[in-house]
């Protein structure tokens, strides 16, 4: 876990380590086989290089390199997916080098909502951005919104909005509404402190409007 605390009475360490070691080796082997298959199918490696003069191995490695057309593409794609999948599992599994544990507090790209004796609650910057943009898009006249969220960790959030409005909408009103919506979203929905919200409003012309409105 990530905080200062560690679980007491954790008596399964050896078994747990063995389990993780075995599965990591298996995943690494799978990624290795996939990489070799990919390189053979691509023609970067030759079967003779890998076989080292041993006839059965050379024959085995000749299989992916002898393919052409769609079968070759399928093998290339399949080996790539399997290889990347094995690597993703290795990185994503608990205890791996890039454990799915969040890796401490605070981390770049996170906004701290709560931090107490029992742990912490953080929101990813992407989540903050999505909430702000959706909140602003609910404002009258606003058709397009791109939000830039700054200030991570426990520091107050800064929001910079780029807003597109329908023709005929008051730019000043739209800016005020957008800023208010962003502020409300950050404070009420996220529970984060906000430093300032700035908005740049542009009126969309008919072509641009046609792109955004069905």
């Amino acid at each position, binding site marked *: 876990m990530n905080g200062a605390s560690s679980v007491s009475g954790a008596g399964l360490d050896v078994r747990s380590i063995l389990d993780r070691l075995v599965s990591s080796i298996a995943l690494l082997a799978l990624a290795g086989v996939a990489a070799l298959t990919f390189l053979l199918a691509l023609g970067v490696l030759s079967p003779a290089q890998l076989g080292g003069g041993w006839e059965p191995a050379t024959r085995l490695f000749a299989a992916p390199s002898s393919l052409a057309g769609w079968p070759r593409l399928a093998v290339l794609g399949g080996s790539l997916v399997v290889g990347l999948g094995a690597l993703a599992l290795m990185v994503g599994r608990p205890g791996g080098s890039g454990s799915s544990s969040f890796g401490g507090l605070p981390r770049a790209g996170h906004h701290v909502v709560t931090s107490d004796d029992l742990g912490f609650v953080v929101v990813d910057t992407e989540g903050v951005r999505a909430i702000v943009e*959706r909140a602003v898009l609910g404002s009258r006249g606003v058709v397009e919104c791109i939000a830039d969220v700054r200030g991570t960790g426990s520091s107050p959030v800064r929001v910079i909005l780029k807003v597109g409005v329908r023709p005929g909408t008051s730019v000043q009103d739209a800016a005020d509404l957008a800023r208010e919506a962003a502020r409300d979203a950050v404070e009420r929905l996220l529970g984060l402190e906000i430093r300032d919200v700035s908005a740049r409003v542009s009126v969309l012309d008919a072509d641009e409007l046609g792109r955004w409105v069905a």
Partner: protein
Amino acid sequence: MAPDAEPRRRGRTYIDDEVVSVIARIAAEQVEGVHQLGRSTLRGMMARLGRTGGVDAEIGLKEAAVDLEIVVEFGHPIREVADELRETVIETIEATTGRRVIEVNVYVVDVHLPRLEHTGRTRRVE
């Protein structure tokens, strides 16, 4: 070991981390405002193949700790959702395993947005 010792003194009960992950997942899914656990990316999907996606738990003989990755429904105050989530997960794990939960970390990785009816980026063309 005395032959007349209480049954619970005749050996130890070990609980696997994965069991706690499953318990935490079930508890978390019942909390209003939690759309899903874990990321919806390829990594999230791959992680789910091997482990309980979005949940990383650790349990010993006395204590447990859990990390949760969640996607929150838009419109729900995140602080309230997270507080309820932590409370529910702690109560459920403690009631089910008998271990004291010492840490629950919540990482809100994304927000689930409903489709806008009239405007917005979710519908560029008809």
